[in-house]
């Protein structure tokens, strides 16, 4: 395994670790203010790079593309991981999970004459 690959892997692990720490901090900070979009963009790029670096050394990942030249195979695999991670947009995923009011339900008051006053 080349020194270049090991370096890429180490940087990937370090960045992933720091992003994990930042993510946990944001979750437990007890502040309802959303993370600024600019910061989210930075997180996405760094996470995508870190994920790509991490994936470059995965054996299963390498063997998947064994038909090609080794250098091209590693670069192609890491690039694919970068694109996949970068394409995932966490704010959109979170918004989709947001609980919303139920759909309006039309109801009838059965005993309209005897209802009280408000």
């Amino acid at each position, binding site marked *: 395994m080349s020194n270049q690959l090991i370096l890429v892997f180490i940087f990937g692990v370090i960045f992933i670790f720091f992003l994990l720490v930042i993510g946990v901090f944001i979750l437990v900070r007890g502040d309802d203010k959303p993370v600024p979009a600019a910061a989210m963009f930075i997180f996405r790029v760094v996470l995508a790079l870190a994920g790509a670096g991490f994936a470059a050394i995965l054996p299963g990942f390498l063997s998947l593309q064994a038909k090609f030249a080794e250098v091209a195979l590693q670069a192609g695999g890491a690039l694919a991981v970068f694109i996949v991670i970068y394409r995932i947009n966490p704010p959109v995923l979170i918004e989709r999970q947001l609980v919303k009011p139920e759909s*309006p339900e039309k109801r009838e008051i059965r005993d309209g004459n005897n209802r009280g006053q408000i």
Partner: protein
Amino acid sequence: MALIPKLANVSWITVEVETAAGFRLHGFLLYTMSDHFFPEYITVDGLVDLEVWSGDKFAIFIVHSPSEKWIEYARTKKHVWWKAFSSHFEGKPEMLELLQKYGSVPLLQAGDVKKTMREVFAPPINEYLHGDEIARILSYFELEPTQHPCLVLFKNLNDTSFWYVGMGDMVNMPLQDLRTSLKSWFAGSDFKGLLKEAEDA
């Protein structure tokens, strides 16, 4: 939008609002003080948001003690709420002015406890009375006492049909998520559909 300091006022304010402002649709946003974080949201940003989102065709009623800022805003803008409540409101204009200037000044002292002018003149609503009033409105619409928080929408208070929008799953949502969710609802097709249906009726 209107806040109701005392529920006995609901009937007459509805009549006045309907005739004076021509709202097409009315509704109650019903929550108790334990439906976190609805009361917290209304106290902080909710009034401003609902005032904007509800528009000029929808009158939303909230059982909540009005803040001084709201009263001042309503008075300055000659808001429908002010028109309806000003003659019945316990605080006369002179009193409101005094509260603004000297609200934080201790007025009474009993033992070690000091009460400011604002506390002394605060509306007599606590979480128990508030819960009672929410229960009365739910009962009026033949809803279960547990069916809150919710939105109850109607064209006329005397109609026998109304729309129920449950919000039980939104209890304990963080404030920002709650705001986003409500904003999406008011901007969405459900609310617009109800407005159109009320207008066409």
